[in-house]
């Protein structure tokens, strides 16, 4: 039976942050600001938190200065509600939109290098779905650092955490949440370099593992965005919320799907079909190229389906054009420097002279681990899991409902990260030190890893990964039908079975990339199953979830889906009501916060 897996050692801390990205480290700094002496451990799969995927975010972070003479937080709230296709929670929308500016100033005060106006103030640019006067005309609302806003944010929260002495544990994965009598007491982790398991016992644990769209063939996400956090929650018997809400960004670079930020269209870039027609004018007469992403992604696929797309020989893939040729040189060189260099390097086109080939790319998970407006993880609609918190892309509070507006995610990381951190501070006041683990405790990860290490089949990791990615793209992608989803679910069952028979390249535990990736693949399959089942269950179209057999939104589905998966492929569903508190408060223009029609 090969190797016996054991917990090599047990560490203790006050707070364990699983996922040292933008959200996780904003939470950590919020805790340190109030109680600097606490011991915090922050985990990342990478060699440094600085390398977390937040660092790749390009376009900006939405925030309305309450002193702004033109823009107002309530416009932002309305846009977020409308953008979500009436499926976000209004208590969260209100909280996040009202906190936004304060957090921008926090970032700036802690050293972020925002781009500036001539007056030396933080510059702002327009973004999709963000408008003035309840949908009138585009708003300048996205604060940015050139086209590397995420890097500015990541560098700031990482270096602030460093200043406070947060312990970073890199090159590791959390493999299991430890729950005792319903309370979270930490996690088991696996260290890549030494191949050892450690138990980390903590009074409070924050899940902030980020996104998960690597199960799609074309994806803007990093290699490690494999849904680990969601799989950990599901394996611990906890529900996840609205995973069917996957966002496809309309402009991925043809090929792997590297993102070409919406900031490009914010600066004036135009989508064109093979006749070079600016086709968005037909689909969204007012917002045009700055309509929300779900709408534009469907329009792009529609153009391709009706024969107005193009085909890229080098990458063997369909695409449309993004036209940046008319933008001033100054914009190319200063405001969108990184993205222009990506086009040059990865696609071989020069955006100043050439049309750029783009295609929709799987970008963002709107759903996630359900939390209340304080970042406390819920086990059902009535109760929370003591000691467990979640924030960032892996969490669903829910600010985005079934569709997220661009620049609202970075906003969410920073605001909800802080809110969660502050809640943890409260929780720590009475939190008890967890008891030692019994030495003979069983661990999910031991089971998983010994299965992978002992498998002797003929299956190949790469083949299963590629089959999964094609399957999800084709059958659980931008357009879905009952037929495609039923087929996908059947294929996922087969893939899960096949994944059990992949013989690992080496059974060494040290820096074993193959073993690590097989573990990730299993997480991807787990999460894909919940996405597909949720999409099948939701017989309507709303936001990023589009069913060709149910093309309209339906009031019957005015709720968030809660899904649990006690065994692989047996998904059970619950419902969480949508918070309508802005509407119910009957304040200014409250009628717009009802289930309104969504047109752009």
């Amino acid at each position, binding site marked *: 039976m090969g190797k016996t897996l054991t917990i090599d050692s047990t560490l203790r801390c006050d707070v364990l942050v699983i996922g040292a990205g933008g959200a996780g480290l904003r939470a950590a700094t919020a805790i340190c600001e109030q109680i600097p002496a606490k011991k915090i451990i922050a985990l990342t799969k990478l060699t440094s938190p600085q390398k977390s995927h937040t660092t790749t975010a390009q376009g900006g972070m939405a925030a309305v200065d309450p002193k702004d003479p033109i823009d107002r937080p309530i416009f932002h709230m309305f846009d977020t509600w409308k953008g979500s296709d009436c499926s976000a929670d209004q208590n969260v929308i209100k909280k996040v939109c009202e906190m936004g500016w304060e957090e921008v100033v926090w970032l700036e005060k802690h050293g972020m290098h925002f781009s500036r106006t001539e007056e030396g103030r933080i510059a702002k640019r327009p973004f999709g779905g963000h408008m003035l006067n309840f949908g009138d005309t585009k708003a300048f609302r996205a604060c940015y650092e050139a086209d590397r806003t995420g890097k500015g944010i990541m560098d700031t929260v990482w270096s602030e955490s460093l200043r406070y002495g947060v312990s970073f544990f890199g090159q590791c994965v959390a493999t299991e949440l430890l729950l005792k009598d319903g309370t979270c007491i930490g996690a088991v982790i696996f260290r890549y370099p030494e191949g050892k398991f450690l138990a980390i016992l903590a009074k409070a644990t924050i899940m902030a593992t980020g996104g998960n769209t690597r199960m799609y063939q074309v994806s803007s996400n990093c290699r490690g965005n494999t849904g680990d956090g969601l799989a950990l929650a599901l394996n611990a018997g906890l529900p996840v919320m609205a995973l069917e809400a996957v966002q496809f960004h309309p402009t991925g670079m043809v090929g792997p799907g590297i993102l070409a930020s919406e900031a490009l269209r914010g600066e004036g870039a135009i989508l064109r079909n093979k006749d070079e027609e600016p086709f968005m004018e037909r689909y969204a007469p007012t917002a045009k190229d700055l309509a929300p992403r779900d709408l534009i992604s469907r329009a792009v696929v529609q153009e391709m389906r009706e024969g107005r797309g193009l085909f890229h020989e080098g990458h063997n893939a369909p695409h449309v054009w993004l036209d940046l040729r008319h933008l001033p040189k100054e914009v190319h060189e200063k405001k969108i420097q*990184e993205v222009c260099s990506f086009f040059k390097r990865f696609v071989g086109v020069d955006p100043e002279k050439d049309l750029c080939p783009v295609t929709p790319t799987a970008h963002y998970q709107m759903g996630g681990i359900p939390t209340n407006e304080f970042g406390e993880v819920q086990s059902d609609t009535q109760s929370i899991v003591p000691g467990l918190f979640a924030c960032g892309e892996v969490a669903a509070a829910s600010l985005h409902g079934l569709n997220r507006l661009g620049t609202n995610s970075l906003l969410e990381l920073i605001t909800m990260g802080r809110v969660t951190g502050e809640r943890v501070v409260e929780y720590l006041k009475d939190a008890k030190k967890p008891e030692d683990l019994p030495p003979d405790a069983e661990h999910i990860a031991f089971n998983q890893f010994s299965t992978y290490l002992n498998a002797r089949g003929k299956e190949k990791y790469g083949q299963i990964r590629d089959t999964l990615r094609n399957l999800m793209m084709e059958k659980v992608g931008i357009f879905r039908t009952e037929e495609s989803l039923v087929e996908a679910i059947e294929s996922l069952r087969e893939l899960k079975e096949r994944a059990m028979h992949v013989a690992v390249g080496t059974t060494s535990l040290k820096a074993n990339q193959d073993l690590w990736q097989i573990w990730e693949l299993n997480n991807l399959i787990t999460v894909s199953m919940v996405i597909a089942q949720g999409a099948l269950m939701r017989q309507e179209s709303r936001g990023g979830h589009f069913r060709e057999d149910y093309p309209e939104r339906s009031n019957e589905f005015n709720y968030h889906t809660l899904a649990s998966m006690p065994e692989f492929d047996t998904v059970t569903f619950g419902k969480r009501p949508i918070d309508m508190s802005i509407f119910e408060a009957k304040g200014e223009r409250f009628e717009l916060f009802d289930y309104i029609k969504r047109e752009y």
Partner: protein
Amino acid sequence: MSNSYTITLEINRYDPDTALSWIQTYKVTVGGMLRFVDVLRKINDEQDPTLAWASSCEHAQCGSCGISVNGKPLLACELLVKDAVEQFNTHTFRLRPLTIAPVLRDLVVDLEKAYDRVHKAKPYLIKPAPPQPDGDEYRISPETLETYSEATRCINCFCCATACISSHDHFLGPNVTMANIVRLMDQREMAKEERMDILYREDGVYRCHTARACSFVCPKDIDVSHFLALGKEGKF
């Protein structure tokens, strides 16, 4: 495939269990648009699942995938096969791990250790200037920002540090020194003296011989040595 290439990779292998090192040769036929990370993935899928390499963002934004190709430190995720063939004028490539930190396996080095140096530069604001009275942001003109914003694009890939002719043991390295200089140029930083101490300490900026290898290899096209020169001249 429109234009495919048959290339040979000679890769440094290292097995941490036996401490054995060797060079292994792989021959692959691939499309010219593939990145080196895609080629390594293809080798894993089709020839050898044990070959270890590192990456994350795979579009030159995180600095996880640095390796040396035919002696030049670069990002494996942004080197396309067709460009490599052209740039190095060969179909045979010698891949080695960066020399900046211990090798964990094959092409994977322990950058976590290399980051200890970055931490020494204290990349945060040590002592921030007092906030604006009205709770707003500081005022920084675009012209001032422009004098150092290039340096803030550094992704800590350590390619420059690998290329640097000054010794790794006695010099903090180009990227780390530059990170400190950024904060010296940042008007929001009040702790200038502490920063000068970091700049001019034993392993500080004077270890740099101004050979400009760093600027030459930087995948983000940052003129690193320009910033180090500012540091030497005390021009912030």
